[in-house]
């Protein structure tokens, strides 16, 4: 044992190889290998009997650019952007309160209130909204008690966002997406706000800025990388989700739904693979942009 320890001590590169080897091999073989497999699959195609033809072709990508599929990409990206904006608006006051005003105990409690929904029960949290938005559920009950039926009907009658009921509409989906991804936005903003030096705020006040001006010109710009960091999660999670669209959507597919359907009933793994290359590219661009804005330091 002792001799082995000395042997290793004299060969730091060997220790490094032993430490780094297993996780590195795992990630390269399993994960990067899988991503490579995905790209390869996307160049395969399916013949008329539904068998995967293992020869490289661009035909699958050709199928990708139909009007229906382009609609799916645009629809998903717009939803992701809207959800990102809404979570940022809701998360900022929470994060600001936590970083600036909360007592240590309140802060710990608020932190836990973000942490719990962030780590757990994602499906239950979506399911909760099935109960809430159902036709005979809580929201409609309140609407009836308050005699707001006509207002709700008017909202549901709007083109695009509306639908037959709240539980089957883009509006409902938007609410649920905002709800499930909100914690992912709060934490990075809060972390960014915690790092704003107090002296800067005091300097701003000393120089005559009112609190609103300090917020606008000092705090917000410094918190922005946190918003971008949070948006990486909200955007990526919305792009890749199929649970919310399946639970609350209609036949207008989102990316995740389309991909899932290609691995299920409409069996076409190559097309599913080609489909996911699109969110990969979108996220690649997004991450590059976020990096330039310094968002990675706020992660």
């Amino acid at each position: 044992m002792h001799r082995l320890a000395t042997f290793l001590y004299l060969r730091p590169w060997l220790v490094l190889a032993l430490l780094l080897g297993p996780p590195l091999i795992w990630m390269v073989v399993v994960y990067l290998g899988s991503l490579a497999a995905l790209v390869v699959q996307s160049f395969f195609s399916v013949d008329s009997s539904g068998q995967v033809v293992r020869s490289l072709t661009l035909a699958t990508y050709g199928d990708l650019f139909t009007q229906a599929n382009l609609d799916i990409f645009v629809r998903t990206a717009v939803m992701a952007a809207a959800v990102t904006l809404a979570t940022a608006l809701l998360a900022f006051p929470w994060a600001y309160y936590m970083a600036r005003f909360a007592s240590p105990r309140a802060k710990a409690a608020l932190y836990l209130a973000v942490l719990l929904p962030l780590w757990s029960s994602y499906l239950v949290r979506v399911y909760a909204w099935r109960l809430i938005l159902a036709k005979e559920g809580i929201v409609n009950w309140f609407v009836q008690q308050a005699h707001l039926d006509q207002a709700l009907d008017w909202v549901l009658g709007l083109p695009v966002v509306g639908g037959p009921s709240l539980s089957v509409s883009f509006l409902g989906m938007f609410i649920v997406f905002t709800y499930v991804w909100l914690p992912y936005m709060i934490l990075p903003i809060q972390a960014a706000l915690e790092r704003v030096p107090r002296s800067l705020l005091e300097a701003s006040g000393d120089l005559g800025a009112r609190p609103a001006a300090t917020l606008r010109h000092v705090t917000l710009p410094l918190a922005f990388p946190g918003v971008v960091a949070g948006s990486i999660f909200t955007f990526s999670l919305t792009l890749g989700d199929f649970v919310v669209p399946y639970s609350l959507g209609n036949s207008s597919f989102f990316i995740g739904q389309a991909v899932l359907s290609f691995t299920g009933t409409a069996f076409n793994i190559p097309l599913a693979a080609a489909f996911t290359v699109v969110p990969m590219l979108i996220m690649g661009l997004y991450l590059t942009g976020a990096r330039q804005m310094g968002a990675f330091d706020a992660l």
Partner: protein
Amino acid sequence: MPSSPAAGRAPLGLRLTTLGAILFLHVPMLVVLLYAFTTDEATFSFPPPGLTLDWFQVALNRADVWDALGLSLRVALVSTLVALGLGTLAAAAVYRSRFFGREAISFMLVLPIALPGIVSGIALRSAIGITNLPFSFWTIVVGHATFCMVVVYNNVLARFRRTSGSLIEASMDLGANAFQTFRHVVLPAIATALLAGGMLAFALSFDELVVTTFTAGQQQTLPIWMFSQLTKPRQRPVTNVVAVFVVALTAIPILLANRLTERTVE
């Protein structure tokens, strides 16, 4: 911005919007809890026509729920162990040496959770398809361990950075070899970080649906069971009860992990 009494009271508007966000984030879970007791069998009517404890009994007797729960627990346990091993090794390597591509390690480990879930899912599904591997317990575990690794890695690396390197040097100076130093100095220092990382990895795995959908084949984990109930409800009250159970079960490791990391900070 360290909070201090000097910051004063928050403006009313800020307090109200924060309160609104808190309610938005937490009231829905209370709704789930309420519905677990409803006597309404067929719809989601509010207010519930009556309250009962019967559904807990019914859910307890459902074999499909138990099977799904068992599979989820086994998958989460094995994935967590794999993630603990590999994540700790990676953290140790990154902490103790500088090498070419060190930054890339963190980036590669975070990729499985930074990329949309369906990307990881379809990627693994493509690999399974190309290699003709049959779906099994292990195809699920491999996927889960891959995205759980980063949680352990982050926790352990953060702890390494806070533990002073001079302790390790002192141990070596006093004649302990590398293994003794690891056993008596390094391991106690990172023990709670390992536990916290493991808890979070467990919760993450237990709750995962998107990647699992593509790596499970016909097997049903608890999230897959829940999802099938979301799309094709069979017995709604049983789903309500299982939902409450899942929330309670996943809250425990997260609360513990929070406790463990909180106490050791300063």
